């Protein structure tokens, strides 16, 4: 590969870094050529016409791209999936056509007059960008960015301000791609709108998509690989041994390129460098960093609050006050009130469709409370979005386990931990240990059992040392032993100073953990009290067994199906 080709490879690597920064949040920007063009033209113009020194020109290019990216980012934050892809594609094309219509910069004929750049400077800029990106992606901000890719709701529940993160990613990505554009302008000495079209946008996107979506290394490998493939195939005739026989291939290199892309997607849909591969490759680096971080971690002793039964004197932590919520005509919740005190464990039960999950979603902020209020430690949180409530101290888990597919166990806990900054929290190491996941700290969720995934999700929630945690059907799908271990874990939570609201269908499990029971039916509270008192309540029996049944219909969702046993087992 000639030096000229290598410089282009390095420039492509810079563009790839930009792509990674945005796609890592799940936003597939197919209009990067637009930012590339802005960076190129602004750099070229400030250099050629205003005589700015090169570093300043490059910065100007990056800044211009970032400024244009800001409104785009806000628009993109409202879009998902195909709409997002098409929207960014549109932006790229609009930029290109606009530039092509600006006579002042040469129209479609192109622009030249740049002073040029030497290879070493290109490498220096690239290294700086790489270092910055690396620092960013390994920081807490990088972690938050990565959490948004998989599951925006789960990210909000973990305290991540998903919209801000997405906007930030688009802008930063544009700035970096703008730098790449500036480098192109200075290296090529001639730029025209033709070089900033859809094919370029696709190519930049392919760096990430084909190289590896979930790691910076992937983007780099993608850029290097694709550039080398396209460039190297030109000289394939020069290869020793096989050179002559495949010389005729050179003109077909674009076909080979397309075929390689196709085959790679079949073989490695996540990209060449999968997350698992990247993790394995960087293990020695992580060990070193871990040692460094361990010194910086606040090693807190487990808060020594003794397990105390909820007494009337304990402070009220969460107040749900006459909350109501309706979906399209159906009143899912009406006039639901309950109070939770520090260190309490409450079981929230009810038949299928009674509104338990809806209540959790309303308290956690995923749904708005259309009527009523929610107060945390006396402060009203009714209007706060989900991620702010998490930071304030209301944590939750989801009915179907929602952990982050591409974050390791440790990263997930760290994410949750970060949401509680400002509060005294147990260290990440300690928490991993008490969750029994210390040995699995570098595992990805797909490599965990269901029970481990549930523990991970609960760990994520309690890592922030919230005032209260809402657990939505954590025992679903578990066998007896797993359920017992889970119960033990949940019982330990109030000892850390976090109150527990447990929603579950399994009455044995729920009563085992909850000191007090709240029963919902058709969106309203129909009984509260001790487990024994509540199950003896005829209204509750009716709710489970149906109004006309004598006691021979087993309740829907009841796991043992033998209610006669209930009264005996509930006496504790």
């Amino acid at each position, binding site marked *: 590969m000639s030096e000229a080709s290598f410089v282009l490879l390095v420039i492509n690597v810079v563009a790839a870094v930009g792509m990674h920064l945005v796609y890592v949040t799940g936003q597939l920007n197919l209009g990067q050529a637009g930012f590339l063009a802005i960076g190129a033209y602004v750099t070229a113009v400030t250099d050629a016409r205003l005589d700015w020194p090169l570093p300043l020109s490059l910065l100007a290019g990056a800044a211009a791209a970032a400024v244009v990216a800001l409104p785009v980012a806000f628009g993109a934050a409202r879009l998902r999936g195909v709409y997002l892809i098409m929207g960014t594609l549109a932006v790229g094309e609009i930029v290109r056509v606009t530039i092509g219509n600006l006579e002042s910069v040469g129209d479609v004929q192109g622009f030249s007059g740049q002073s040029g750049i030497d290879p070493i400077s290109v490498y220096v800029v690239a290294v700086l960008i790489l270092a910055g990106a690396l620092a960013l992606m390994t920081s807490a901000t990088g972690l938050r960015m990565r959490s948004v890719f998989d599951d925006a709701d789960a990210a909000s529940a973990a305290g991540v301000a998903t919209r801000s993160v997405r906007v930030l990613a688009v802008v930063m990505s544009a700035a970096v791609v703008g730098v790449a554009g500036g480098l192109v302008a200075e290296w090529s000495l001639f730029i025209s709108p033709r070089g900033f079209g859809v094919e370029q946008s696709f190519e930049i996107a392919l760096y990430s998509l084909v190289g590896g979506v979930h790691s910076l290394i992937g983007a780099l490998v993608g850029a290097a690989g694709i550039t080398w493939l396209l460039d190297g195939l030109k000289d394939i005739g020069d290869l020793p041994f096989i050179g002559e026989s495949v010389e005729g291939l050179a003109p077909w290199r674009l076909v080979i390129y*397309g075929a390689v892309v196709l085959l790679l997607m079949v073989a490695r849909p996540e990209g060449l460098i999968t997350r698992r591969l990247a993790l394995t490759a960087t293990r020695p680096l992580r060990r070193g960093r871990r040692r460094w971080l361990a010194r910086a971690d606040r090693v807190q002793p487990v808060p020594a609050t003794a397990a105390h039964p909820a007494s009337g004197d304990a402070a009220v932590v969460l107040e749900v006050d006459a909350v109501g919520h309706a979906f399209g005509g159906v009143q899912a919740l009406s006039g639901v009130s309950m109070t939770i005190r520090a260190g309490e464990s409450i079981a929230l039960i009810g038949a299928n469709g009674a509104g338990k999950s809806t209540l959790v979603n309303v308290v956690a902020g995923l749904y708005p409370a259309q009527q009523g209020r929610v107060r945390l430690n006396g402060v009203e949180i009714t209007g706060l979005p989900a991620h702010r409530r998490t930071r304030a101290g209301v944590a939750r888990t989801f009915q179907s386990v929602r952990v982050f597919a591409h974050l390791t166990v440790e990263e997930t806990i760290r994410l949750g931990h970060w949401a509680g900054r400002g509060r005294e929290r147990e260290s990440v190491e300690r928490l991993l240990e008490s969750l029994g996941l210390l040995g699995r700290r570098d595992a990805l969720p797909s490599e965990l059992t269901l029970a481990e995934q549930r523990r991970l999700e609960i760990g994520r929630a309690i890592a922030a040392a919230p005032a209260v945690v809402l657990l939505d059907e954590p025992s679903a799908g578990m066998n007896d032993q797993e359920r017992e271990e889970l119960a033990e874990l949940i019982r330990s939570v109030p000892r850390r100073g976090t109150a527990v609201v447990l929603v579950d269908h399994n009455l044995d499990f729920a009563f085992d953990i909850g000191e007090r029971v709240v029963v919902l039916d058709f969106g309203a509270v129909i009984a509260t009290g001790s487990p024994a008192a509540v199950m003896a309540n005829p209204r509750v029996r009716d709710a489970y067994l149906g109004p006309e049944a004598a006691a021979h219909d087993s309740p829907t969702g009841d796991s043992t199906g033998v209610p006669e046993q209930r009264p005996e087992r509930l006496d504790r």
Partner: protein
Amino acid sequence: MTQVLLNGVLLGATYALLAVGYTLVFGVMRLLTLAHGQIFMAAGVVSLVITGPGTPFWVAGVCAVAIGAGLSVLTDLLCFRPVGYHRPIPAAVATIGFGLVIHNVIVQLYGSNAVGAPFEVPRADFTVNGVLVSVVQLVSLLITAVVMVATHLFVNRTKWGVAMRAFSEDPEAVAVLGVPTRWLSALTLGIAGALAGLASFLVILRVTSVSPSSGLEIGLIGLAIMTIGGLGSLPGAMAAGIALGVLESVADYRGFGFQAAVPWLLLVVVLLVRPRGLLGARTS
């Protein structure tokens, strides 16, 4: 001006046919076939190359439709099925690769210059109120209209159409009922490809040539139209296609330099007003 409008409608018909193809594939399978534009181009080029000077022009049309359908079914076999229907982004990237293959094979075989039609397109023009109308144009419009109606009827009245619509809601439940889902995906793509081939033929009738570089550009416009018209809505795609054709024609007539950006500006405006974020994880 009426001339401009008429040209616009014709242009829009081409767009609409392409957009309907995208909409079918996306509506039924929740997947993007980014090779569609290249298939449109390839169907045109190959149909011209394989029909010699003596063949009647409509043979080229049949060829284009067949090639379009064939290449499109190949997209299903080579891209969607191996990657998996549940992985929309890698599947779309695979189609990008496939599109690259198609485009560059054509360029290697036939060069990058426009390929001219070897046959004579019958010219029977007449004037109405000072507007020049060619029979070919009228017939094109008629065919397009008929095809659109037929597609709409197919999707809404036949059992395969019902199966396709059900598949977009719950593919597993469709399989459980004994519906051969493999045929379903091939059928959807085949129809989309046939429409693209037809669109290519209609372009040939108008301008008597096909350029290998047109695939990408027109393919993208088709995608834009699908998005503007509302993903998964056939009538929306059709209407948006015609509308865009007219807008572009008017813009060109007025010397609006930003003509190429018209579809994209329109798209941005529509997205701002109706972001209609996709619910459900199927495309993210």
